[in-house]
């Protein structure tokens, strides 16, 4: 097995902070921890190339470093990239993480690294990589490298990877499916009885806490405000011109309501599989209340209604989609000088 190993200047034995500016260097054999790594893997395993880069250089010239490293990994015909372990070293962790992610995406060979949970590199790359939880002490080098080697072997053989606890990698925050012996009902009753008896139980899912969204200041004068209507109820013009998916939508659309006072059912359709849309089909104003907004506009209660409304489908939509779409919508609203938005959901 041909391995490429990435180290920073310190673990590469080239110096301390004074060498942090050094550019990427290559060496055709195992260096430092790489020698131990070779011993921990099977007899066929060889570190054919060690890449060493200064910590500052790697983060300040990340693109350049990665481009050059990718080329060398390709030339070396590597079957595995090992980076670190980096322990608590932040710049090292960032460099190792970004290189592993790039090699995984662009070359497609297995990659493994190790960091402390508190390493900023872990925060950035834990989702896309298996990062062995190294703790903060380099004295645990052998232990950490052993875990990295075991997990790497599994990745190479395409074997199932156990839980973070079993393999000691930093939880990636991802979900995969598994068929298990017990039915959901059996698991459910097991769990409630353990909980009722005060025994330990393992929940199959953990809730996520989210940063609270702070309340924006109120609209100071509604009579001068420009308002916009946004819905996640999936109202789209007939034919669904933007092909907004009815479930887990990745797209949204902005539709003109210029010189229109009332939405007509025959002009619209619903792309949303999660609610009973018959009442919206009868009268789309029930979802996007254009009729009353026009009245308020005429009465002078609000300054002006934006001549487009925004729509997407809010069904079974993962947060990764909705965050992006929310940002895009907010940018558009900002561009249009919108002061307030009425968001209607279903």
């Amino acid at each position, binding site marked *: 097995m041909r391995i490429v190993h990435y180290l920073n200047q310190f673990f590469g034995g080239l110096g301390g902070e004074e060498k942090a500016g050094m550019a990427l260097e290559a060496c055709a054999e195992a260096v430092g921890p790489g020698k131990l790594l070779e011993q921990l893997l099977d007899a066929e395993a060889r570190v054919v190339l060690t890449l060493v880069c200064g910590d500052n250089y790697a983060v300040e010239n990340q693109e350049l470093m990665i481009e050059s490293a990718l080329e060398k990994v390709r030339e070396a015909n590597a079957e595995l990239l090992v980076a670190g372990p980096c322990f608590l070293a932040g710049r090292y962790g960032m460099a190792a993480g970004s290189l592993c992610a790039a090699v995984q995406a662009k070359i497609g060979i297995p990659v493994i690294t190790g960091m402390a949970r508190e390493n900023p590199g872990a925060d950035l790359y834990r989702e896309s990589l298996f990062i062995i939880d190294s703790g903060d002490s380099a004295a645990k080098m052998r232990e950490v490298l052993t875990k990295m080697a075991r997990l790497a072997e599994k990745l190479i053989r395409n074997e199932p990877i156990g839980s973070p606890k079993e393999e000691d990698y930093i939880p990636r925050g*991802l979900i995969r499916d598994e068929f298990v012996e017990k039915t959901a009902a059996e698991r*459910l009753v097991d769990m409630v009885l353990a909980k009722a008896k005060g025994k330990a139980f393992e929940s199959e899912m953990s809730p996520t806490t989210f940063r609270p969204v702070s309340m924006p200041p109120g609209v100071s004068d509604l009579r001068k405000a420009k308002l916009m209507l946004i819905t996640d109820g999936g109202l789209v013009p007939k034919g669904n011109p933007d092909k907004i998916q009815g479930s887990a939508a990745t797209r949204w659309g902005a539709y003109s309501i210029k010189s229109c006072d009332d939405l007509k059912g025959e002009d619209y359709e619903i792309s949303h599989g999660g*609610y009973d849309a018959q009442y919206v089909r009868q009268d789309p104003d029930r979802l996007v209340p254009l009729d009353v907004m026009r009245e308020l506009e005429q009465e002078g209660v609000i300054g002006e209604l934006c001549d487009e409304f925004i729509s997407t489908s809010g069904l*079974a939509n*993962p947060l990764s989609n909705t965050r992006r779409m929310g940002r895009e919508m907010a940018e558009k609203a900002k561009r249009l000088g919108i002061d307030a938005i009425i968001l209607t959901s279903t």
Partner: protein
Amino acid sequence: MPLTLAIHPITEIRFAERFLLDGTVVFVDIDELRRLVVEDSAIASVDFQIARPGESCRAGPVFDIVEPRAKSPGGSPDWPGILGAPETAGHGTTHILEGAAVTVLREQSPGESRGATGYVLEMSGEAAAGSRYAKLQHLIVIIRTRDDLAMHARQKAYRLAQMKVAVRLARAAMDAAPEKTQVFDIAGGEDRSALPRVAYVGQIFSRQRKPEPEEQIIYGADTDGMVPTLLHPNEWLDGAVVTSYHTSIGGAETYFYQNNPVVAELYRRHQAREINFVGTVATIASADNCDRERNCHYAANLVKWALRADAAVLTKFGGGVPHTDLSETARLLECSGIKTAVQVTDLARDHRVESALLFNFPEVDAIVCIGGNSTHWQLPAVQRVIAANCGLAELLAGPFEIEAHNVIGVGNQQGASRLRSMVY
């Protein structure tokens, strides 16, 4: 209220001149069944086919699956509210053709969030391994309703035909001696005062949609205006509840109300003297906050004051929104000192933990999660496709890719699923 299940194991269904149970083979008189089904003026014609475990066979889109069962005279009626008066289900003797199923197909793809294929019954291969339905002998009922009918009228006809066929089939066993009997009763002589009192709260409908006109879900009623209600565990097992026409993620079938995995597991623990199974609440998921507040409080109060439970397990029905009713009810119970565990479906299409749940209550921390979002199968072409028309047969012929949630039985929300979300 004791319920006796008289169990007749079935290993084969065969078409014949007359109904007969011979050992573990049930002979079925198709002509009689056909007459029975077309009695309903909504139905133009009907066909029957048999699908066996391990066969290179696929059927769909599935409307519902039911276990053939028939009541002995003197007990509660067959399907109260649908075939009989809506009297209390769950007492007397019920004859069961265990290992058999009556499976009704739809004439149209259900579309919407469940995709073009709808729920597919797969009898062999990798996808079949994840579903208990693949181990059953299916009598597949292919109904053609009259052209001029609205969708709700078609579905009502499917349901009625399904129940009539299933009961008629099971009546073949009425005079035979069952291989075994099981008695279910939560009232018993023994002192259970030292055991934890455990209740079940099960959603049977989600108001993400209005029920279809004349839809029959609980004792023939459509759940409109329903508030949480006490059910004896036997009522679930014996025909009080059938599944809604619209089930969403992973499905819920009448078969798994009759064989409710949560009720069965609680009964098992009750009979093993590990718990005191004190009863159940049937509830619905709401469409708005007022409805939600009211229903969650009602359900929690029933568990607290009527059942006086120490612990409760909760399951949901339908899509994402029911997560909120489920978790709010569990939270209210926890606030009353009643320990809970809830069963949910994974909503994370992006496979991220942060997208999996629609709630975040520190008290609601015991969660069983049915996976499905990262399981797809490439279904091969099969030798036999059973569908209501050529278009659907072509759609299901294979090969095609299918999500786990569209293979009926795999992601089941009633507690039957063996698919689990693993966080990594």
